[in-house]
């Protein structure tokens, strides 16, 4: 059961990232350094390569292995951040979460790890601006459709924001008007997870 779920999640997330790598790059060219697509694709490929090995593990161990793979292959800012998210989730998880409440606790631990690693929080025009509101929806037991909507809305909401963290922060006012690349990759991941859960 865990095995199938983990491998489906890896496939869905990795494929979506690979298919959208160019979109991520274009966003990062506007307000960053143009490598977010390549970075995330590298991580996605590493996950696919290690998919069998990862999905043979217990859920928490799988999260830890996936997090380590991300940390060791992605680099940039997104590598340690998404890696820390998975490692943080691994610490909080025991088995596969049995309900939204349990899931929200694990996800919150991942988000706290991102905040600690990035010394940041929602509002700085980063991936956290998608991850934090999505976690709230999970915590309040929202539907998958609602979670998708919130992911899109909060991605959209990064456009008018002034970046305070990451490379985009160096742009000051000029960061306004563009969606954050990390927020976009976070939204892609949320949708990919939703796809898998809906197909269960």
């Amino acid at each position: 059961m865990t095995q199938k779920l983990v491998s489906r999640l890896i496939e869905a997330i990795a494929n979506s990232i690979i298919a959208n790598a160019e979109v991520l790059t274009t966003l990062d060219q506007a307000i960053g350094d143009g490598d977010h697509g390549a970075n995330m694709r590298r991580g996605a490929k590493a996950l696919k390569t290690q998919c069998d090995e990862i999905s043979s593990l217990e859920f928490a161990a799988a999260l830890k292995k996936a997090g380590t793979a991300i940390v060791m292959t992605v680099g940039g800012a997104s590598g340690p951040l998404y890696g820390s998210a998975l490692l943080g989730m691994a610490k909080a998880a025991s088995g596969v979460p049995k309900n939204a409440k349990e899931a929200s606790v694990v996800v919150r631990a991942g988000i706290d790890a991102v905040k600690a690693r990035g010394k940041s929080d929602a509002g700085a025009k980063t991936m956290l601006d998608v991850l934090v509101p999505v976690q709230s929806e999970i915590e309040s037991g929202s539907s998958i459709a609602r979670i998708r909507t919130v992911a899109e809305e909060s991605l959209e909401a990064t456009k008018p924001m002034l970046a305070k963290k990451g490379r985009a922060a160096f742009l000051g006012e000029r960061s306004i008007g563009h969606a954050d690349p990390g927020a976009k990759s976070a939204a892609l991941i949320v949708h990919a997870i939703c796809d898998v859960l809906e197909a269960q």
Partner: protein
Amino acid sequence: MKKLINGIDDVLSESLRGFGLAHSDLVEVSLEPRYVARKAKARDGKVALISGGGSGHEPLHAGFVGAGMLDAACPGEVFTSPTPDQMLAAANDVDAGGGILWIVKNYSGDVMNFEMAAEMFDGDSASILTNDDVAVESSLHSQGRRGVAATIAVEKIVGAAAERGDDLDSCRLIGERVNSASGTMGVALTSCTVPAAGKPTFDLGADEIEMGVGIHGEPGRRREKLKPADALVAEMVEAILESAGADEGSEMLAIVNGMGGTPALELYLIFDAVSRECDARGISIARSLVGNYCTSLEMQGFSLTLTRLDGEMRELWDAPVRTAALHW
């Protein structure tokens, strides 16, 4: 995109292998994980200096590995910070018992990856964060300034301090002193193109420049019309001195750094303009570098770094160095 490459995924490995072959007297290159270490092991007890960051800024950092400067460098993908496994492997290789000093340019990716490596490393380590780019000040946001070409001054001067036997903490302190005494500002005439992206990072009009550009093509202070070299230099010197401070009579290290695609003819012309600008302010250029040191792939443009030297810093700058890119 026109590049002298084979497959996009092989660019970095092939280039690193070439670097190792061309400088086999000075360095050893590990391709898995990727790092470049000194060939001649440092003496026991020396503080080991490790730097790193995204590739595309060559000769930074691998070109500064060797006696009197870095012990190892960890190159990430183009414009992407390296990963902690690289830093760990490099640290375990070059650790000589005096501890590891990580020299990190202030970008969130570099900071976080080096931080993770430091957490994983079994042994003493400390880090220096360079943040000399005065183009983008820290008031607006919480990221702080970017680390750019003054990193070379930090690596050279701290490298000499480590060589003469300074301990980890003294090395860190002198590095921070150099960083605080430095300011840098860059300007781009053209964009660079990241191989994996396949298209220019930004577009500039035929007569436009990006004043205050970052070394990854990040925007700077503003986009404007190209000005004469003297006017560019005057603005940059003003901005740097405003931030780094310099009284009449200060002795400076000046680095006129090509962004990768700028002819040497123009870099020396810029150095002439910098000299005149400093003269007019009663500031003397005691030491200088003119050339490609901290580049942005094929970008045309340059950065100017001014570092206020004290007696000790000047002495350490003058100490022998033997690397692919600096040698005296």
